[in-house]
C-alpha cells in the first residue's frame, strides 16, 4: 500500500506553539514523523552579544515561557560563574523555593494542556489552570509580575521575599498536596486516558541515552539522571531529595514521573521553607558597569522543568562574546520520530504532548 503524506501545522492547536510535522502514514499507522521547526526563530544568541550582562535576563525568560524563572536563574548563574560572584545561603534557599514553585506551575500547565490534547478532556485543563493560577499568584506576590519575573540579580534576588511569603506558600502547598491525588483520581480511571497513555510511545532506555533526551522524558525511560541529585546546586544536597524515575518509557510513565515530581517539589518547598536561614536574599544592585569577568568560559547546567538546560558563555569583560544554549526541548523533539514509529495517527498528539515542548525554546 502506498504511503500517505500528511502535513500538520504550523498552526495547530496541539503543537504548543508553531511546529510543523510531516507525517508519513501507512493506513492509520505512523511510519515516519518529520518535525520542521524554526517558525519562532528570533536570534536570541545573537542579540545577547550586543548587550551587557544584566540587560539580558528578559530575553532569556522568553526562551521557556512556561517556566521563565528557571531560564532566568540559569543565565544569571552562568554570569555569576563568569564574574566569580558568590550566592549567599539565604539567597540560595530563596532561589530554590522559587524554582520549585516554578516547576510546579510548569507541570500543572503541562497537565492541563495534555488533558486538552487528549481529545477535549476539558475538566483537566480547567483544574490544571486553576491551580497554576494559585501558584502564579504566589510567585506574583514574591516578584511583582505574573509571567516574566526578571527576579534574579547577581548573588541573589531583586527584592526580599515578602514577610508573609512563608505562611502563604505553606498554605498553598498544603492545598496542592490534596489536589494532586484528585488529579490522579480524575484521569487514571478514564478509559480514554488509559488507551492513549499506557503502552503508547515507548522509548527504550538505550534509545533514550542514544538520542540524548533530557528531563522527565529521560527519567521515564529508566535513567534516574537528575541534575539536582547528580550535580547538586544551591541547597539540594542539604535537603532530603530523591530523583523520581519510572522504567516503562511510555506516555503513562512520563505522566507518572511528572506527577511524582510535583509531589516531590511540594515536599522540597516545605522543607526549604523550614530550613531557610535568616538573612538578606538581596543581590547586587543592577548596574550596567559591573565587576569585570574573571573567567573567560563558564558553563552551567540546571534541571529545568523540561530537562537539563545548559548555557555555555564565552565572556568579554562586560558582555557575552558568545552564548550557546543547549535546549532540552530541541533534543526531545528529535526523539519524536522514534517514539511515534508504529503508533496510530490519533496517538501522535498524545505522544507529542507528553514531550512537553515549548517551541520558543526549540527555535531560540
Amino acid at each position, binding site marked *: 500500500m502506498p504511503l500517505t503524506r500528511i502535513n500538520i501545522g*504550523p*498552526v*495547530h*492547536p496541539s503543537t504548543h*506553539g*508553531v511546529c510543523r510535522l510531516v507525517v508519513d502514514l501507512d493506513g492509520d499507522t505512523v511510519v515516519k514523523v518529520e518535525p520542521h521547526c*524554526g*517558525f*519562532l*526563530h*528570533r*536570534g536570541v544568541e*545573537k*542579540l545577547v552579544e*550586543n548587550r551587557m550582562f544584566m540587560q539580558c535576563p*528578559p*530575553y532569556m525568560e*522568553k526562551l521557556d*515561557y*512556561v517556566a521563565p524563572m528557571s531560564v532566568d536563574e540559569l543565565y544569571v548563574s552562568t554570569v555569576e560563574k563568569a564574574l566569580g560572584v558568590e550566592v549567599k545561603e539565604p539567597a540560595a534557599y530563596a532561589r530554590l523555593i522559587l524554582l520549585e514553585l516554578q516547576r510546579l506551575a510548569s507541570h500543572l*500547565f503541562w497537565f*492541563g*494542556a495534555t488533558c486538552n490534547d487528549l481529545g477535549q478532556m476539558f475538566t483537566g*485543563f*480547567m483544574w490544571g*489552570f*486553576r491551580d*497554576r*493560577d494559585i501558584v502564579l499568584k504566589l510567585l506574583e506576590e514574591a516578584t511583582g509580575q*505574573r*509571567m*516574566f519575573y526578571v527576579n534574579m540579580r547577581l548573588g541573589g534576588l531583586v527584592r526580599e521575599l515578602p514577610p508573609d511569603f512563608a505562611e502563604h506558600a505553606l498554605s498553598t502547598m498544603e492545598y496542592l498536596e490534596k489536589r494532586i491525588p484528585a488529579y490522579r483520581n480524575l484521569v487514571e480511571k478514564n478509559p480514554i486516558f488509559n488507551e492513549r497513555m499506557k503502552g503508547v510511545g515507548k522509548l527504550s532506555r538505550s534509545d533514550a541515552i542514544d538520542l540524548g533526551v533530557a528531563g522527565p522524558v529521560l527519567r521515564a525511560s529508566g535513567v534516574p539522571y537528575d541534575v539536582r541529585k547528580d550535580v547538586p546546586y544551591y541547597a539540594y544536597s542539604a535537603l532530603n531529595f530523591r530523583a523520581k524515575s519510572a522504567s516503562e518509557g511510555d506516555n503513562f510513565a512520563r505522566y507518572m514521573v511528572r506527577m511524582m515530581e510535583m509531589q516531590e517539589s511540594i515536599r522540597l518547598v516545605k522543607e526549604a521553607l523550614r530550613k531557610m536561614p535568616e538573612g538578606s536574599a538581596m543581590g547586587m544592585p543592577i548596574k550596567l558597569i559591573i565587576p569585570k569577568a574573571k573567567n573567560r568560559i563558564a558553563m552551567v547546567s540546571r534541571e529545568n522543568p523540561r530537562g537539563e538546560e545548559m548555557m555555555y558563555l564565552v565572556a568579554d569583560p562586560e558582555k557575552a562574546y558568545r552564548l550557546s544554549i543547549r535546549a532540552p526541548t530541541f533534543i526531545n523533539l528529535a526523539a519524536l520520530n522514534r517514539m511515534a514509529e508504529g503508533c496510530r495517527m490519533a496517538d501522535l498528539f498524545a505522544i507529542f504532548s507528553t514531550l512537553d515542548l515549548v*517551541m*520558543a525554546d526549540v527555535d531560540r
Partner: protein
Amino acid sequence: MADNENARKELERLLAASVGDREIKPNVMFAKLSELTKAFAKPMVDWARVNSLWPLQFGLACCAIELMSFGSPRVDAERKGYLLFRATPRQADVMIVAGWVTKSMIPEIKRMYEQMAEPKYVVAFGECATCGGPWWESYNIIRGIDQVLPVDVYAVGCPPRPEDLYLALMKLQKRIGGKIED
C-alpha cells in the same frame, strides 16, 4: 455555448413579446418591505455579532499562555460571549495575534486571515505583535503585525494580563457597534 446564446435570445424575444408596450414599474410594496427588514435587522445583527465574538485558537509565543489563561476558570472568557476558541479560521471572527511574528510565519498568517469569513477583526496582543517588542533589533522579526494585517485593537504589556485581553475585546465590541451587554 452557441446553444446557450440561442436560448437566451429566444427568452428575450419571448419576454419582449409578452410585455409588449407596457411600462414596467418597480414593485413598491416589496421594496419598502426589504427596507423595513433591513432597518429592523441591522441592530439585531450587530447585537448578535458584538456579543458572540469567536476568537481563533492561534498561539504564537509567550502571550499564547495568557491567551489560554483567558479561557481558564479565573478569567472566564465565556461570560462575555467570547466563546470557545475555534481551531479553524473559517469559524472564527477575531484573530488574536499573540507573539512575535517571524518572517517565515508571515505567509501562514496571511493565509489564515484570508481564510476567515467577513467581517473579521485583528487584535495585536502584546508588545511583540504591536511593535516588535524586545526583538525589534532581530534579523528575523517584523516590527508589529500591523505591517501585514489591518489591526483593530492593540493590547500592550509583556505579556498583557488576561484582563487586558478582556479590555481589548470590549474595545473591539465598542468599535463594531451595537448594544453591549454589561
